[in-house]
């Protein structure tokens, strides 16, 4: 093949690669631009302080907002974190620090499989285990489902972060006569902390955007509970969350609700972006 033709092929391929990249990035950036430009007008004080109520409220121009979804998201996601973080970090620790443990091969395969399982199946699992026997949809069931979404991500990230810690640190601890568990908690964990926090944040971002499992477990609720600051009011009854509310608003027939749906989209996007920025800051500082 002559040289000129090879050079041309090289250039054409570079062109194709750039074209492919634009094909990927443009529509997704357009989506973000749409969400922000359509939703910004609905982001006012009422959005954060009033609950949604029935559709008549918006048609008669009364103030509505998504306070019940914001509060519900906060409490349900926090409860999910409380359940998933210790178990996930523990499982990750076992994978990374006790490599010889006989449970590990099975644990690793099942953890990766659970990570790849559709989130809706995690919702169905909690539905059959908790909602069906108890006879009621509840925020707690929702946080259990989200916890199952977070768990394998946290375990995987923990394993990765702990594996990066050099063995010399463990050897130094063991040489001082510390037992293995003290070495792990006092010497390995602090070194790996930025990685652990980043993993937890990514798991949180992933779970906070999930709507499907919540539709099957916490269902949704248009109203703020009477005592809006009491987490139990959300966890024991059907409760609202932003992604599931965004879905209901988007498929509703009301213009005003569509605008609030876009605004809920802004909040979810902002959440993801903030989580990523914090994670990046943490990993950069540790280097």
């Amino acid at each position, binding site marked *: 093949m002559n040289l000129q033709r090879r050079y041309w092929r090289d250039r054409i391929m570079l062109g194709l690669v750039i074209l492919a990249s634009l094909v990927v990035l443009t529509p997704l950036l357009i989506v*973000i631009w749409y969400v922000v430009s359509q939703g910004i007008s609905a982001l006012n004080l009422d959005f954060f302080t009033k609950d949604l109520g029935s559709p008549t409220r918006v048609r008669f121009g009364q103030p509505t907002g998504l306070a019940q979804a914001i509060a519900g998201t906060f409490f349900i996601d926090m409860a999910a974190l409380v359940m998933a973080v210790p178990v996930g970090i523990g499982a990750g620790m076992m994978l990374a620090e006790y490599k010889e443990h006989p*449970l590990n091969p099975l644990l690793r395969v099942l953890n990766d499989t659970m990570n790849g399982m559709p989130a809706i199946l995690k919702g169905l699992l909690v539905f059959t285990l908790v909602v069906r026997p108890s006879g009621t949809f509840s925020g707690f069931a929702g946080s259990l489902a989200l916890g199952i979404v977070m768990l394998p991500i946290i375990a995987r990230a923990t394993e990765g972060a702990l594996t990066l810690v050099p063995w010399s640190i463990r050897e130094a601890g063991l040489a001082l006569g510390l037992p293995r568990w003290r070495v792990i908690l006092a010497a390995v964990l602090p070194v790996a902390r930025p990685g652990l926090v980043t993993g937890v944040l990514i798991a949180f971002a992933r779970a906070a955007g999930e709507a499907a499992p919540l539709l099957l477990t916490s269902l949704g609720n248009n109203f703020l509970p009477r005592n809006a600051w009491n987490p139990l009011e959300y966890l024991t009854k059907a409760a609202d969350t932003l992604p599931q509310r965004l*879905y209901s608003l988007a498929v509703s027939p009301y213009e005003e609700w569509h605008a609030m749906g876009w605004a809920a989209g802004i909040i979810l996007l902002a959440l993801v972006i903030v989580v990523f920025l914090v994670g990046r800051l943490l990993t950069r500082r540790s280097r």
Partner: protein
Amino acid sequence: MRITTRTGSRWGDRAFLTILTIFGLSVVAIAVLMAWTLGRDALGPLERFGFFGFLTGTRWDPVSGTFGAWPFLLGTLITSVAALALSFLPALGLAILSAEYAPKWLATAIDYIVDLLAAIPSVVLGIWGILVLAPALRDSVYRPIVAWATENAPSQLAWLGNPTGYGLVTATLVLALMIVPYTTALARDAIRLVPAEQREAAWGLGATRWEVLRMAVLPYARGGIAAGAVLSFGRALGETMAVAMLIGNSARLPLTLFGPASTMPSVIVNEFREAVNTLHLNSLLAIGFYLFLISLVVNLGAAWIQRRLVPGNTGL
């Protein structure tokens, strides 16, 4: 004194490992519970219609109590395969740009944007699809094509379908958009793992940049890229919200291009609240059970490809 600290530490070690084992076992337990509970609830419909009979039944009619999952299985496979086919090459292009061509600052920026895009919640893409993309496609693509076909090729109308904007093509497009950052991130990581010597050898033979890629880099990264594509396929299979919002939700066989259809996750989420009858609800759970089985096979398949085809990976 020395003996007490030693026994104390041994007890500490034992207790610590016990706690970790309990945590590890709970991950295992969740996976087992998922298979068991879904299987148990699926038992009713499966006994009634048969293991394969349920899967291949083409009628899904809650009113008469006939449940067959074939329309949804077909809808899931069509949308996922088409979405992967649409998104694979562009994703590979972006991965190559970031891993091979781009200067460091640009590569960092692309990586960051791709990771961020992969984390966009699917409902956010869904609301864009339902309020912007679907009406736009209906008015400027589907309706003109159907209008043209009515004039010139009426025999083709049967497979074009009703151009409401909500149907197979719209759902597939958004699904492709949704998995493309994910495929990109996995392909990029696979390409980054290719050792520098591999490239240098090709450069040393006087290869152009594209030839280096084609001869040295892509063959080496093949396994990782393939495993990533399979994982993306698995993600497309289970994607629920964006598809449920855009596919039009019909329990008929997905035989038309623009017309409504359903996928396995979308039918679960759409009919869930209306399923008052136990057989109907259990049939939805049975669909979940099959989705679990398919997803299991896909994920184990990806792990297998990773182990077999990635050089230097010894199977740990």
